[in-house]
């Protein structure tokens, strides 16, 4: 097994790079954990600094100001447009509502609108707009049904203090939240592709050296045996990297990950991605001629595929065009499967089919890439 031992010796020379990538991977996982901190389901209402300029002073105006005061911090400002604009420019306030005189007749019973000053197109402006509409509509409905204005205003203010109990549907056994190990698996393609492509390319360039090859062909080990040992080396390195990547979620999330009912699916999905990464590394190793360009090519492939296929950002954030293009890349199907696993514990028939389709496509991609690499390799040998 001399060739195999040589393969592993060269692999050991790249161990520092492997460790570097694992550190990057772990750092990302820890950062995600810190950012989400396990409280993704908690909700806190946004409170803004807003100004209410009351030119009316009536019951409805005071009620509206009290209503908004429940949600936001009211800032006293003079009724001066330039002051309002200055404060808004410096973001000391995010919204200014001017309640004009005779607001009851103009806006509650008439078609008049309340003049507001807000940051154009901002979510904060939209948010306060909605709250004002809610208040006015509620009061309008109540007074229309015969309830006196003061009672209607009080009733709307009181009902706004009621809190609704919200429970997320627990589809995946993690209280509806994405488990943290799912984030780790989301980033795994980047690590698998980077580590395997780097290390395998270096080894392939070493073994593809024509002079070394000739010397090996002169030896007593048949060419078929040499190739078998090289394939065995590939499998060993692939298994080792897969093993390390699988061990990490166990180490970081322990029982949570071990008890996940989707554990076998996660393992299978990442295993198939390892096969894809191995075949990809074989293809790049066949195409790349010098060690100097390995880094550039591997970065383009691993980062490019990661950005396009939802490794670094969730799939739903990707544009339609990007998603369509990403369907021609294997990491996309890994991520689709990973998203299914992260959000569900039991699968419907359709979901199961989607999952198996993702697995099947990854196998096909691995086989296709390997096939192309073999054709190129054979062509370059005979050329």
């Amino acid at each position, binding site marked *: 097994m001399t060739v195999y031992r040589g393969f592993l010796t060269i692999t050991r020379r790249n161990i520092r790079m492997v460790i570097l990538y694992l550190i990057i991977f772990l750092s990302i996982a820890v950062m995600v954990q810190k950012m989400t901190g396990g409280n993704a389901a908690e909700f806190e209402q946004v409170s803004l600094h807003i100004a209410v300029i009351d030119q009316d002073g009536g019951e409805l105006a005071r009620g509206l100001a009290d209503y908004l005061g429940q949600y936001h911090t009211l800032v006293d400002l003079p009724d001066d447009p330039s002051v309002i604009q200055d404060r808004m420019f410096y973001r000391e306030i995010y919204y200014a509502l001017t309640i004009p005189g005779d607001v009851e007749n103009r806006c509650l019973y008439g078609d008049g609108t309340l003049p507001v000053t807000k940051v154009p197109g901002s979510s904060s402006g939209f948010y306060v707009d909605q709250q004002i509409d809610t208040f006015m509509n509620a009061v309008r409905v109540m007074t229309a049904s015969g309830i006196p204005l003061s009672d209607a205003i009080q009733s709307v203010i009181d009902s706004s203090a009621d809190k609704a109990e919200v429970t997320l549907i627990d589809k995946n056994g993690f209280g509806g939240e994405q488990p943290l190990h799912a984030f780790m698996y989301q980033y795994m393609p980047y690590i698998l592709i980077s580590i395997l492509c780097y290390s395998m390319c270096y080894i392939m360039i070493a073994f593809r050296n024509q002079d070394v090859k000739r010397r090996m*062909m002169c030896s007593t080990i048949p060419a078929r045996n040499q190739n078998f040992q090289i394939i065995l080396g590939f499998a060993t390195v692939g298994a080792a990297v897969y093993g390390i990547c699988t061990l990490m979620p166990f180490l970081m999330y322990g029982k949570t990950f071990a008890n996940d009912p989707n554990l076998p699916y996660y393992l299978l999905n990442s295993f198939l991605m390892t096969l894809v990464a191995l075949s990809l590394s074989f293809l790049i190793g066949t195409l790349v001629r010098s060690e100097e360009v390995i880094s550039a090519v591997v970065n383009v492939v691993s980062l490019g595929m990661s950005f396009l296929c939802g490794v670094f950002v969730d799939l739903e954030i990707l544009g339609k065009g990007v998603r369509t293009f990403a369907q021609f890349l294997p990491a996309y199907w890994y991520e689709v499967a990973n998203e299914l696993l992260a959000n569900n514990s039991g699968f419907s028939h359709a979901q199961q089919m989607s999952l198996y389709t993702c697995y099947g496509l990854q196998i096909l991609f691995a086989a296709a890439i390997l096939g192309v690499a073999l054709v190129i390799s054979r062509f370059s040998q005979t050329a």
Partner: protein
Amino acid sequence: MQSTNIIQIENLVKRYQNLVALDHLNLEIQEGEIFGLLGPNGSGKTTAINCLLALLKYDKGTITIFGEPMTPGSYDIKRQIGVVMQNVAVFEQMTVRENIDYFCGLYIRDKEKRRQLVDEAIAFTGLEDFTKMRPKKLSGGLLRRLNIACGIVHKPRLIILDEPTVAVDPQSRNKILEGIVELNRQGSTIIYTSHYMEEVEQICTRIAIIDHGHVLATGTTEELKQMIKTGETITIEAIALDEELLSGIRNLPHVFDVSYEEQTLKIRLGAARHNLVRVLNYLQEKDVRFGRVFSELPTLNDVFLEITGKELRD
């Protein structure tokens, strides 16, 4: 002791489409020889070696090594052959020792035996102080020595060295040549190709001159020198020689070529006694003043030039 043929190549033909690289090449190499293969670039030396090692398929002919036909599957024969390529064929990522051990492992499975052979190869090539270094840290000469160590580590009966001293400093070159002679002394048969005629002349017991894919001449250095017309070359520094005088020199006995360029007179003569005295007497008779005078016996370069009609490095 009767010498036996270790290699026999008969009517070997190798074509690359319309180009005939080997044209009915015939060679016999005997056990214990240091056999020099001389030829200009493109003469077919490397193709012949590649066919010999079964790295290339050939169109016609037979190759027999150790009495057996050589094929890609002749692993018993391959076990007894060591190859030192023209280019350094080692792994950049492995240390000197790991490289030698790796290439030894392609022939020897037993770990203990391998360790011993690797130590011997390291000692033989004088690489003891560099065993933990990577090839890119080695000088050109040390790299060549590593290349040789990787080729001979399994103690082969037949060693093929394809220009092993290219781009090597004189000190390392001498060390390599001494090593080759020592390997031969230890019992290995050597096939040696080189551009450096003086190296071939220095170490080879028999030489084949090859051009256009076939052997033009084979023999020892002395035998080759006797095959050519030139027995002596006389060079004289002299000023302003006229055509009448040169014509007189051409008519002297044994002279077959006279040239006069840049005040240097070069006379090539067949092997005979008193050639130099005769030429000098003639010049004195004609009252020609001359400076330095050299008389040289034919070199391998003269042999090559006369047989192939071109310099080796053409």
